[in-house]
């Protein structure tokens, strides 16, 4: 395929000097990059069957268009292989889908998308779903996450020098691409979200920093694990009562323990949705219960009153009369989505489940099909 690339060209004497060009111009995320030569970039576009000028995503609020050429350039820089391109394209389509509400990525809370890959593509590109899942060691996991991060940095102002006001930053920009382990009897995430098992998909959902958040379950017993999770999940984001779509990851050995007692992924999910709650007294102890201003910010934290220990709020359900102490009133009508995604992954030994904290009010998860050569 003849591929005409229109990006400006730069020259350097050698590889080392090329690195300095990237660092000096602010095009790097702090690590060295693979210089995106014309041949390398063309390989990516040829593999995916995409014309360089093809629009992969648009960010109208930043007046930006993300082309296949720019995605390929940043993917090369990240260290991706051409065969990752279909996953990269699906991730960009998801992140620029209006339902994801791209602009929230600028927020003070440093949200960033977790990218979950399902279906046959994961094994084809050797995307890790197992041990050390959220750590370094697997090329596709890190370079896909990094490729998306570099693209948004260089083409959509997602950087501190641009339109990114995150207080602490988010390591998902390096580690935030994982595959689900689909070898257990549990229903894969994409099937639960309405797709066929044999389809490959990318699901993105915005998370607060701190991923992965450990929930230690000392006993490999379903009842113990479920009770621990239901007690812990409301508080993984400090005094902020989380609204939105949480994820929970279980290891395959934990899934096996559930399956032995007849628990499916669907029944585990439903149990957690039905039973994750907090007393008002505990919310007050954790500084999460307050009178709110018109803008929805906490003006006055409230003291525990008699009876508060026996009144409850459920994390995954409408809070009814208690809304006004927990959530921003003007936002309710338009973004009341509570859900729980359960995913299988990680090592097959260990006592921890993993949770992510949703950037709830400002965004929605999006799932897209991975398309092979177009």
């Amino acid at each position, binding site marked *: 395929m003849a591929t005409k690339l229109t990006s400006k060209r730069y020259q350097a004497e050698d590889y080392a000097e090329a690195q300095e060009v990237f660092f000096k111009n602010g095009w790097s995320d702090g690590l060295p990059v693979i210089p995106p030569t014309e041949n390398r970039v063309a390989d990516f576009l040829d593999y995916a069957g995409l014309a360089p000028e093809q629009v992969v995503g648009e960010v109208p609020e930043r007046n930006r268009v993300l082309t296949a050429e720019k995605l390929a350039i940043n993917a090369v820089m990240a260290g991706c292989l051409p065969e990752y391109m279909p996953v990269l394209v699906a991730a960009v389509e998801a992140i620029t889908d209006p339902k994801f509400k791209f*602009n929230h990525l600028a927020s003070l809370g440093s949200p960033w998308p977790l990218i979950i890959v399902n279906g046959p593509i994961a094994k084809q590109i050797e995307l890790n779903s197992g041990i050390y899942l959220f750590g370094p060691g697997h090329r596709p996991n890190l370079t896909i996450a990094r490729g998306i991060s570099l693209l948004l940095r260089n083409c959509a102002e997602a950087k501190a020098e641009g339109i990114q006001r995150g207080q602490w930053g988010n390591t998902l920009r390096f580690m935030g691409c994982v595959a689900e382990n689909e070898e257990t009897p549990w229903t894969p995430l994409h099937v639960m979200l309405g797709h066929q098992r044999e389809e490959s998909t990318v699901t993105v959902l915005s998370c607060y920093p701190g991923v992965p958040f450990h929930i230690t379950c000392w006993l490999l017993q379903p009842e113990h694990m479920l009770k621990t999770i239901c007690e812990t999940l409301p508080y993984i984001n400090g005094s902020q009562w989380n609204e939105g779509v949480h994820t929970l990851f279980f290891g395959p050995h934990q899934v096996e323990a559930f399956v032995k007692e007849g628990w499916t992924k669907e029944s585990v999910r439903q149990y957690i949705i039905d039973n994750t709650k907090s007393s008002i007294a505990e919310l007050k102890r954790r500084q999460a219960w307050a009178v709110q201003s018109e803008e929805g910010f906490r003006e006055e934290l409230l003291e525990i009153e008699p009876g508060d220990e026996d009144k409850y709020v459920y994390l995954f359900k409408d809070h009814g009369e208690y809304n006004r102490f927990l959530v921003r009133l003007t936002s309710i009508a338009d973004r009341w989505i509570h859900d729980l995604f359960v995913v299988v992954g990680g090592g097959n030994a260990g006592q921890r489940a993993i949770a992510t904290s949703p950037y709830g009010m400002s965004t929605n998860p999006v799932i897209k099909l991975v398309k092979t050569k177009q």
Partner: protein
Amino acid sequence: MPIEFLDPTADAPSGKNRLAPRLGSLDSKTIGVLSNGRPNVDFVLDRLTAKLEERHHVKIVRTMKPWIGNIAPKEIFDQLRSSCDAVITGVGD
């Protein structure tokens, strides 16, 4: 060995965004204010709008984004565009 490589950045297309014509004066104009809803933003905007009213006898149209993390909805932009001569907005905390 010399290397040639491609620019990874993309700018906004030029020419699409232009500055609106400037008002010659603020006197007696209708000024829209779009609050981003952060804590204490009213502290700043109350004082700013009071000064404008005092000095230029403006009419103020006050609006606020429903949620801090997202762009204001089209209805708010339409309201500001159709009813105001100029708009003040900003980012802050």
